[in-house]
């Protein structure tokens, strides 16, 4: 699964680059508009190590941001599944925050948290948590009657048990959503770095854009894609492993 993800990414990436190069040849464009294969390669060799470190820094923030948003989505999803005043309040708050574009909230975040790690983390988490929240809320508010009935009529139902039953029954769905949200966490972190921060691959891309250096952008995209493929592949693998372990504990 991991390798399939990687080679599928490579196919997409190289097809994209080939398309650009075809355009370059057909329209006789200079290296300024679309860099040639040689200059892409040279930039790759020159920047690989530095960019890789930046991508890993971004990935680090994305992973922590994703874990944060999973916890947040679980908490909000579990509280929000109740029809209490607080439950609906939490739900409304969660939906409202999502309606605001990050670029509009970003300045407030930077004033409150500065432009370091915390801001990047928060923005990554904010971008990534909502789809998670929707799935968690959907899963958590859908009773599994065939299993839960017994616990209800025997008076054994506790919220922890309810959550456990619904999570277990939807493990596959949860794993898919979580591995999918990795993309959003990564994109969120890059957006944060792009608008603020002075670290990470988003920051490198911003500088490359200042310098009109498409070759650097292409190299950065390559590293982002490959890192993300590996990360998602690992997440899927972990999901599979958890499922097997839980189902045969």
């Amino acid at each position, binding site marked *: 699964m991991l390798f399939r993800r990687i080679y599928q990414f490579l196919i997409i990436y190289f097809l994209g680059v080939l*398309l650009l190069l075809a*355009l370059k040849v057909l329209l006789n464009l200079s290296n300024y508009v679309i860099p040639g294969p040689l200059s892409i390669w040279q930039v790759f060799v020159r920047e690989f190590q530095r960019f890789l470190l930046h991508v890993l820094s971004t990935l680090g923030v994305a992973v922590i941001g994703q874990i944060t948003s999973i916890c947040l989505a679980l908490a909000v999803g579990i509280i929000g599944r109740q029809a209490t005043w607080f439950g609906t309040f939490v739900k409304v708050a969660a939906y409202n925050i999502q309606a605001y574009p990050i670029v509009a909230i970003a300045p407030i975040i930077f004033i409150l948290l500065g432009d370091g790690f915390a801001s990047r983390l928060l923005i990554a988490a904010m971008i990534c948590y909502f789809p998670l929240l929707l799935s968690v809320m959907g899963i958590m508010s859908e009773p599994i009657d065939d299993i839960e009935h017994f616990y209800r009529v025997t008076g054994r139902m506790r919220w922890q048990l309810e959550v456990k039953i619904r999570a277990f029954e939807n493990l596959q769905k949860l794993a898919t959503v979580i591995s999918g949200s990795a993309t959003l966490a990564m994109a969120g972190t890059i957006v944060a770095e792009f608008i603020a921060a002075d670290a990470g691959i988003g920051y490198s891309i911003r500088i490359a854009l200042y310098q*009109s250096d498409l070759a650097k952008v292409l190299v950065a995209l390559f590293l982002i894609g490959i890192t993300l493929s590996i990360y998602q592949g690992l997440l899927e693998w972990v999901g599979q492993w958890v499922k097997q372990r839980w189902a045969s504990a």
Partner: protein
Amino acid sequence: MIYRKAMLLALAWLVVSAGLPASAGSAEEKVNYRLKWRFNTSVVGDVYADAHGYFEKEGIDVTVKPGGPERDAIRELELGYAQFGVASADQVIRALSKGARVRVLAQLFQVNPLQWIYRSAQPPITTLADLKGRVIGITFGGNDETIMKTILAKAGIPEGAVTLFSVRYDFTPFYRGKTDLWPVYRNSQGPILSRKLQAGGEAVSFFNPADFGVNFVANSVVTSEKMMAEQPDQVARFIRALLAAWRDALAPQNAEKALSTLAKYDPETPRDIQGEQLRITRGLVREDDGSVGRIDVAAWEQTEAIMMEQKLISAPVSVADALTLGK
């Protein structure tokens, strides 16, 4: 697999044909003019030309298009989306170093508007050595980084002797006094920031690198080598119309008309601020005799030398060859 290949080919064809220039426009002489930035006082001459029929008088139908951070006029020239554009000197030099065939028609700013604002309560910067010990805002990767590093190198100030502070789009760190110097466009952000600080009882000063011999050229009007070769007459009429508009827009007696024009293109900015912006822009663009557009070859050569020094280009590009002189 074959199906996918066919799809991709079809897609490529679509992209290519969409990307092909609409070159049939020459009959009616319809051309696009891509600015560097959004409509504001920095482009007053460009919108003045658009609003008051300067291009029509020369018999060309010009669409003036606002720019922005994602826009790159030189790319659009090559792709045929625009026939004329505004680009900064560093863009031109980078493009030349990558084989782009671009020509400079006129240099709009005689003095780079990219300067640093600081509070007048601080010791004034009269020599470069006065920068020592200050916290200086720079946008990493931006032109201000290139300029400031050149200044520091010129003054022999090691990087450890100043604190460089990473700047983004929001001015809070400067308002809160976390940085001493903050990079601004003297003619657009300058008046707005000055006013805000004055409201808090603080006077401001500007640090202008050109005062210390660092002339990094800013915005210029560019076109493609192809246009120069194939439509020399059209290029001549375009630049004639444009520079006439700039001249008129900046003439003090036309200030009211220029401001009314700006109000249409940039309704967001209050008129009194625009008045101040116009006054400053005039000082940066217009020469004492009222002329505009002079290409300062020495400044271009210095800009290229700076970019070589800062390793922004890997080999000299002989920028003077791309400058269209003799106007």
